[in-house]
């Protein structure tokens, strides 16, 4: 199941990536994430229904849909914050099963940003960033701190390194959360409504950071209501409702020429005002 991801990117052209959007994934080894016939229930409630999704390396995917449609649940299944009951999830060649070793391997490769940032309030910004590299990847403190400062500079808040999360604004906290995930040098980043808990004037600074990350070729899955972000950076927009993927397309087509009635409804509601 092992493969060399770098070797694969060389062979994947832009055109091939675009072609991949038509759900025609003949060349399976391009995919860093595969969800195959995935189902999930909360008790009797069927939250995710037969989800099939393939994500290429370097692809930027925006997932939208009404609340309760299972968007968050789906991406939370990818790093096993939620357990799926049927089907397969394969991340970077490793299948998610109850095997704790596989879960650990996958979590090391997949970074995640939450709606409520979830920084560790008892640790400083720098300690938040070096904790996982030091304890999970066993890096010496000096190496971890250097990389943490590098990423804090990239999200433009190196001067806050020794403050506590409680002393930062929401936008700053979310940027720290992104930097904290990047410190583990993940191959894939998951964003679970990263701007939903922010004041309007702080949304832009977080989106800018995400755009920058997207431009650097990170594989991203992003649950968001920021349609501007979807239009500018997404390679593919996925619309979910009632636990199913209703429609997916590249952004221009998705916004201008939605095929399904549900999608048209949803778009008219969020763009109509």
């Amino acid at each position, binding site marked *: 199941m092992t493969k060399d991801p770098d070797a694969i990117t060389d062979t994947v052209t832009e055109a091939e990536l675009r072609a991949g959007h038509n759900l025609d994934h003949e060349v399976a080894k391009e995919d860093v994430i595969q969800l195959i016939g995935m189902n999930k229930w909360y008790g009797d409630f069927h939250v995710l229904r037969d989800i099939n999704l393939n994500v290429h390396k370097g692809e930027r995917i925006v997932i939208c849909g009404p609340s309760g449609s299972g968007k968050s649940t789906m991406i939370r299944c990818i790093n096993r914050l939620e357990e799926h009951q049927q089907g397969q999830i394969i991340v970077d060649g490793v299948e998610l099963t109850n095997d704790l070793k596989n879960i650990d391997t996958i979590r090391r490769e997949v970074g995640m940003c939450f709606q*409520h940032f979830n920084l560790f309030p008892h640790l400083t910004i720098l300690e938040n960033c070096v904790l996982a590299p030091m304890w999970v990847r066993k890096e010496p403190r000096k190496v971890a701190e250097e990389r943490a400062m590098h990423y804090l500079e990239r999200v433009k808040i190196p001067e806050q390194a020794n403050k506590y999360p409680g002393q930062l604004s929401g936008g700053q906290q979310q940027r720290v959360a992104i930097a904290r995930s990047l410190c583990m040098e993940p191959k894939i980043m998951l964003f679970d409504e990263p701007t939903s808990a922010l004041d309007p004037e702080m949304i832009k600074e977080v989106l800018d950071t995400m755009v920058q990350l997207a431009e650097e070729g990170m594989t991203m899955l992003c649950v968001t209501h920021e349609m501007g972000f979807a239009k500018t950076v997404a390679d593919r927009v996925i619309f979910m409702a009632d636990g199913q993927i209703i429609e997916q397309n590249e952004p221009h087509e998705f916004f201008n020429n939605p095929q399904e009635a549900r999608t048209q409804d949803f778009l008219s509601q969020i763009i109509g005002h």
Partner: protein
Amino acid sequence: MGKYVEKEALPPPVSTTGPVAWVRQNLVSTPLNTVLTLFALYLIWELLPPILNWAFFEANFIGDDVSACSGAGACWVFIKTRLGFFTYGFYPDPERWRVDISFLLLALVIVPQFIKGFPYKAWIGVAGLTILPVIVGILLVGGMFGLNHVETHQWGGLMLTLVLSYVGIVAALPFGVILALGRRSEMPTVRLVCVAFIELWRGVPLISVLFMASVMLPLFLPEGWDFEKLLRALIGITMFQSAYMAEVIRGGLQAIPKGQFEAAAALGLGYWRSMGLIILPQALKLVIPGIVNTFIALFKDTTLVLIIGLLDILATVQSSIVDPKWGGVATEGYIFAAFCFWVFCFGMSRYSQALERKLHTGHKR
């Protein structure tokens, strides 16, 4: 349209600062408060002089026996002459330096914790929780390194109280943490065992635990398995208090938002690391008042060992009071015992407040 003019900061009105304002706000702010203030002043006027007279001005400090006490004031001579017994119990005279060194070591660990910015403070604290009990144990029990063996039934007084409560505190905290984590475990067996343990020990009074430990247990144990009464009491107290501790800590664990667990998991931290690095530091900090409450309760509960024949400080005081040589010194004795307990409990309370302030990282969200 008025033009915007920046206004300068002015000092507050005189009536809101200074001693006069303090008196106004705190003592005579309403008619009821004025009445209460006057009543309190009257009580102080009536009660304080007789108390001071009894405890200090007419009290007897000098002398060696009951004849030195005039009877008008407190007979502190009694406390003075029996201080050795109150401190060491029946610990043999020539060996008491070992107890003194133990007290000194304890002080060397505790005092730095109260001093801000003391070097290696944390390490001293850790040593106090790990190495100190071992060293003090060897020192007090003896029987090795050329020290004479001292039977534990000779221990007593303040020393015994401190041994019981220190061991209880040091052992109950880690046990409590493990039990609290176990009670929230996803593994049914672990959870069941922990729930059963906690509910069992919380459901019985400490007195009956101590009775069981000292009277019943030897009946069930095979011949020759008998071990120290003090050790049995220590185990009983530790089990009992760790059940309470577990519930206090569980309260803290439940207050930690789910997002913290998820963030730790998403970063690849396993169960023990996310508990040890993320969850427990926050949870324990939240429940410092509850933990210290349990410690204080434990400290005072150690007096119950009296009923299994161990003489803690209260028991030594009590047995001295009934000594016919000293008539009517009960008040002095009990005040002394109460004062000893108060000093330690108040110390713990102050320390917990200082710790809370220090650990507060301004993250109320």
